[in-house]
C-alpha cells in the first residue's frame, strides 16, 4: 500500500502542460494556449489546433475572467491535506476566451455558489513547473 501524501497534490506536468505552467509561473499571470493561425484558445494545450489543425501556438496572458460553469462542494475526503478545509468548493470556470479550467474557491458559504456567477482565476506559483488556480468571486473582490 502506498503512503498517503500529507500535503496537497502538486501537478507534475509533461510536454505541453509543462509549457503552459512555465508560461504562467514565469510571468505571474494566467495564460492560455492560443493558435497562431486561427486564434482559437485551447485548454489543456494540444499539439494541433482542434479548429484549423495548425501546429503553431503560443501562451499569451489572459485576464482570468470568466463565469461559473459547474462546481462541486466536497463534504468528505480521503486526503488528510483537505480534511481541515471541509466542506470545500471546487469550481469549473468558463473563461471569457472559451476554454474551461478547474480551480479552488474559498467563500463563506460554499452552498451559495451558482452557475453563471462572474469570477476570476488567479494563479499562484507552487513550483517552477506548477501553479495552483484560485477562483475569486467578483462580488467578493475588494480593492
Amino acid at each position: 500500500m502506498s503512503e498517503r501524501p500529507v500535503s496537497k497534490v502538486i501537478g507534475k506536468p509533461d510536454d505541453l502542460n509543462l509549457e503552459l505552467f512555465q508560461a504562467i509561473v514565469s510571468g505571474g499571470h494566467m495564460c492560455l494556449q492560443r493558435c497562431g493561425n486561427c486564434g482559437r484558445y485551447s485548454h489543456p494545450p494540444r499539439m494541433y489546433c482542434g479548429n484549423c489543425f495548425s501546429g503553431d501556438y503560443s501562451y499569451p496572458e489572459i485576464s482570468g475572467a470568466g463565469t461559473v460553469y459547474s462546481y462541486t462542494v466536497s463534504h468528505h475526503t480521503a486526503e488528510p491535506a483537505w480534511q481541515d478545509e471541509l466542506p470545500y468548493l471546487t469550481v469549473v470556470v468558463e473563461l471569457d476566451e472559451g476554454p474551461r479550467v478547474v480551480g479552488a474557491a474559498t467563500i463563506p458559504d460554499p452552498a451559495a455558489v451558482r452557475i453563471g456567477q462572474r469570477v476570476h482565476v488567479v494563479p499562484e506559483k507552487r513550483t517552477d513547473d506548477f501553479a495552483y488556480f484560485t477562483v475569486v468571486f467578483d462580488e467578493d473582490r475588494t480593492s
Partner: protein
Amino acid sequence: MMTSSSHPASALSGRTAIAGIGETDYTRGSDRSVLQLVLGASMDAIRDAGLTPDDIDGVIPPPGFVAWDEIAAHLGIKNVRYTATPQMGGASPTAALLSAAMAVSAGIATSVLVPIGWNGFSAIRPKPGARPSKRRFTAAFFETVRNFYAPYGLRSAPWWYSLYLQRYVDLYDVPPEAAGAVALACRKHAQLNDRALMRDKPLTMEDYLSSPLITGPLRKLDCCVETDCATAVVVTSIERARDLPHRPVVYLGGAEGHSSPADELVNRPDVLRLGLHDAAPRAFEMAGVTAADMDFLQIYDCFTYVVLLQFEALGLAGPGGAADFVKGGTIDLGGRYPTNTHGGLMSQGHCWGLNHVVEATRQLRGDAGAAQVEGAELGLVTGYGDLGDGSIAILARGDK
C-alpha cells in the same frame, strides 16, 4: 428482428453468441490474488460453455490488472490467434464483446474469452499479513487528473464526475429521489440474489436521503460498492453455440462511443453528452431493434446519476427527463424496464460491468432464478468508463 439492414456493420448482427459465463463470489476481504480470481472465473466460463482451454483462440482482457499472455499461459491456452484490450475503463468489458464478435464473425478466431477481475476492496485495505497487490491501473487521462483535477482535492471518480453531474442537477432540477430510485431498485433486486454483497440489507428512500454527501451531488449511497471479484464470458459463432450445452445468447448489435476530448472532462462542448449518446443509436441500428423493444436493461451503475444520464442516452427519456422516467417503479422488477436485475455494481458488486453481461446471459437463458424477467427475449448491457467512454451490447434469446 434478425432481418438484415443496409448498415454495413449488420454483417456482425446475429453471427455470434455468448456460450459460457463464470464468476467468483463477490466479497470484501479477498485472500486470493487478482490473477487467481480471474483464472477461476475464466475456467468456470470455459467449462460452462462445454469447452476446454484448447478450444479458446482469442483473449480480450479489459485493461489494468491482468494481461492476455499470463491468462493464456496459466490456463493452458496454446493457440492464441487474436488478442486486444479496449482502453475504456469500465466501458471496456462491454466493448470487448464487440471486439470478440468482430473477431469471430470475420473468421479470425473461433472462441474468445473475455475476463476481468480485481481486488477492488482489498487492494487498498489488505488483510494483516496479506501479500500486497502489485497490480496497477493506468490510463492516459491520469495526466489530466494529476495536473488539473487532483491538486484541488479531486483525486478519484466521484470527484471527477461530480464536475458534470452537479451541472446536470442544477440545469434540470434533478431531485435526489430520482437518483435514489436507482439505488433502491438495485438494492431491491439484490435481495433476490444469493451472490449479492448487499443481500439482506434492504434500503428505504429515508435511508437514502439521510446518506451523507460525499461531494455534491453524490451521496455515499449514490456510489457503487468496492468489491473483490472476477467474471468471464466466452463468445463463439452462433453455429457452434447451438451445439454447446446452454441456449445461445445472441449478439445482435453493439458499439462504443467517446466524448471528445476523451482524456479531459470539462472542455467538451456539452459535458452532459456521454460516449453512450453516440454509441446507442449505432447499436440499435445494427441490431434492428429499438430501446422500446427491450425486456430488461443492465446499466453500468458506478454512480446513480450516471445511470440517469444513460437512460437519456438510450433515448428512453429526453434531456433531463430521466427523473420522470424512473418514477413509479419503471426500473423495478415487474416494471416496464427492469434494470440491474442482479443488483448491479451498486448492490451485487463492482466487476467492471461484466457481471451485467453475466446477468443478461442468465436472463436470456431463463436461468435468473427469483429475478427472472418473465418471457425475456431481448435485453441490453451498457458500459461506462474513464471520463465518460461508453459501450453497449444488445443481446437476444437464441434458439436451442
